[in-house]
């Protein structure tokens, strides 16, 4: 048979199409030019978004993946192009986001010679990728792409990097693509141990004060409905981690709030009062647990996670279930009794009242005419009815959003959780809008984080992305300033920050913009932003020195959460 030979570069594009990839975020450069040349013929099939910095490309791919459930794809060149991806890789790794990065590399005969724009991207990216591989032969490209998508999207998802030498991109070969469904050394879908399910159900059925903690694992396994069925049957109060927000509607009667350092009072203190603690698809991050030696010591612990390495990593479990959340919940629901925990649920309501009353008192005492971040978020939440996709950056505005935006839908909260990457918000929102174009996508960003990746306004301009940008400008690196106030004797070392004129800046990129300084204009401003059919930047000047409470100080236990 006479098959027409094609280049490695074209094979790469065809392989991506085979994986149903139609959106790519990237930036061209010398070592990836053959791939970009091949891409030129696929303008109809592939929407390539030209970003302004490779970090923007990978954060956009993360936002895209998080709202769509699909794999984000990134192109970058060798050397600096590849190293600019590292922060995003680390972010996607710790937040379990499926990403495939394709980087160009110098020709294979130049490897290790310090050639122009050569860097050991395989070595550099090894600790921050789920898997990576360097390809020096065109014929290896289809296999590598197939494996990459299988690995990135299965099990606990994560980022994968494929480094392709320039000569492999040029080389001609007989292309053939086979999807990958199996790697013998990799077990993404563990078999459920039904004995463990039975043990867990016994503990749950006997529990008087059960508490369920959910994480992003619920969203990643698509277990939202199974979760609801389970908690409604067993009547278990359910709290969420930062990345789990939206997995269960904030309006659900059994939803008791947001966990962790700046989380809600009730689920934090009740963690140290419950008798059975069930954790699903979450990894007991230190921002959730506080002091682990005083964390839920009174409770029996059930931990369900698809990643075996997470089990017993931080918290010793009584029943460990190594499984996919959806499958585990289906099995568990069969065995749990229909139950009622009315007085226990009442305790959460009482604790919530304490929090609301205390925070109200705090606010009354510290009342100023200045706008507060929480007011802005509450206003946005009620106007959007909790229906928007909210992308946050990192800092006080992020914690305020997690606290006061009522997330009603799954995949509607995109935030940099584990890595806490400032600069994540704007590019991630661009990706989120492309991942779910029919939804209102709002990036909530502080003045610090916005200035880290504001070059992506150029991407919004060029690709006409109707993303809404809400800058909460307090003229400080607010979270660091809060810590300086509370733990460093108000020594505000390098946290005061000057901003450019954001309105002029947005206008320079042809983005409509508005600044709000007064409370009475807030609602109108938000409405104007939401009604705009194209991109819009709303800058809200908020109080300079305002703190996020409640707060669990570092080293304290969850029960010691401070309300002021």
């Amino acid at each position, binding site marked *: 048979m006479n098959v027409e030979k094609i280049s490695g570069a074209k094979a790469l594009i065809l392989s991506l199409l085979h994986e149903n990839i139609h959106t790519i975020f990237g930036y061209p450069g010398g070592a990836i030019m053959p791939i970009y040349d091949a891409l030129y013929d696929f303008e109809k099939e592939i929407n390539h978004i030209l970003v302004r910095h490779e970090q923007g490309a990978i954060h956009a791919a993360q936002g895209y993946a998080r709202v769509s459930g699909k794999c984000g794809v990134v192109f970058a060149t060798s050397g600096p192009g590849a190293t600019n991806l590292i922060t995003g890789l680390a972010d996607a790794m710790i937040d379990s986001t499926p990403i495939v990065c394709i980087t160009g590399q110098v020709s294979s005969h130049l490897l290790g010679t310090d050639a122009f724009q050569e860097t050991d991207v395989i070595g550099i990216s090894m600790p921050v990728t*789920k898997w990576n591989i360097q390809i020096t032969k065109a014929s290896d490209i289809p296999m590598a792409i197939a494996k990459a998508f299988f690995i990135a999207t299965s099990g606990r998802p994560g980022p994968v990097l494929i480094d392709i030498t320039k000569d492999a991109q040029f080389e001609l070969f007989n292309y053939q693509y086979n999807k990958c469904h199996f790697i013998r050394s990799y077990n993404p879908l563990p078999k459920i141990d039904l004995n463990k399910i039975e043990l867990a159900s016994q503990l749950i059925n006997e529990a008087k004060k059960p508490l369920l903690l959910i994480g992003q694992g619920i969203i990643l396994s698509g277990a939202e409905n199974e979760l609801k069925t389970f908690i409604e049957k067993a009547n278990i109060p359910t709290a969420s981690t930062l990345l789990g927000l939206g997995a269960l509607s904030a309006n659900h009667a059994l939803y008791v709030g947001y966990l962790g350092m700046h989380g809600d009072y009730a689920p934090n203190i009740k963690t140290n009062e419950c008798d059975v603690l069930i954790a699903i698809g979450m990894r007991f991050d230190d921002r959730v647990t506080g002091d682990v030696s005083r964390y839920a010591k009174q409770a029996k612990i059930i931990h369900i996670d698809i990643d075996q390495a997470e089990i017993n990593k931080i918290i010793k479990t009584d029943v460990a279930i190594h499984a996919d959340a959806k499958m585990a919940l289906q099995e568990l629901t069969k065995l749990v009794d229909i139950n009622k925990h009315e007085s226990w649920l009442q305790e959460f309501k009482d604790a919530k009242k304490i929090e609301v009353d205390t925070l109200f008192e705090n606010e009354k005492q510290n009342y100023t005419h200045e706008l507060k971040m929480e007011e802005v978020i509450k206003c946005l939440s009620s106007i959007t009815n909790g229906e928007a996709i909210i992308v946050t950056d990192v800092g006080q505005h992020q914690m305020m959003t997690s606290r006061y935006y009522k997330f009603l839908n799954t995949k509607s909260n995109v935030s940099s959780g584990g890595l806490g990457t400032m600069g994540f918000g704007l590019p991630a929102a661009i990706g989120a809008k492309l991942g779910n174009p029919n939804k209102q996508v709002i990036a909530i960003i502080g003045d610090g984080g916005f200035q880290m990746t504001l070059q992506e306004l150029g991407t919004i301009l060029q690709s006409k992305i109707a993303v809404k940008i809400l800058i909460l400008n307090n003229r400080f690196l607010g979270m660091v300033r809060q810590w300086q106030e509370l733990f460093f004797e108000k020594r505000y070392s390098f946290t005061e920050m000057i901003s450019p004129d954001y309105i002029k800046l947005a206008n320079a990129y042809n983005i409509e913009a508005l600044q709000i300084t007064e409370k009475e204009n807030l609602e109108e401003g938000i409405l104007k932003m939401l009604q705009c059919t194209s991109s819009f930047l709303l800058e809200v000047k908020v109080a300079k020195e305002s703190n996020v409470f409640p707060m669990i100080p570092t080293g304290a236990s969850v029960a010691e959460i401070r309300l002021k």
Partner: protein
Amino acid sequence: MEKTFTISVFTENSVGMLNRITIIFTRRHLNIESITASESEIANVFRYTIVLKTTDEQVNKVIGQIEKLIEVLKAFVHEDDDIVHQEIALYKVKMNHASSNELEKVIRENYARILAIDPHYIVIEKTGHTTETQSLFDKLKSFGILEFARSGRVAVTKPMKELSQYLKEIN
């Protein structure tokens, strides 16, 4: 409490595997005592033997992270009682006619082997545990050791499911 652990890791034969494994130790600030690698009883499956001094808790976390690597088939952790292990040491000792009788005695008593003889030096080989190869080192010191090299630990386990069995279970 810190103990000596021997970790056996079975992997696919791919570029960079050693690096993937060792960075897991680096990240936790753990120092590897010794590491060896070779093909195992199954073609194209490599066996890494890593010796580490640490706590039970830490070693279990390390094993979890190693097994998470895509190309790792299986990782096991053992304490010394569970394995048969060996190291090899080579000693290049100064040749000296005056002391040759005494040198012969040391070699005999320690069940060491002579690998090469030269008018100026003699190369001696000794396999055993670290304590044994170290003890011979101490005895040879007075003769003048020109060079010394000791391998990492190689080990096979006493009771263990065969790797091929694990492979069947995974498939």
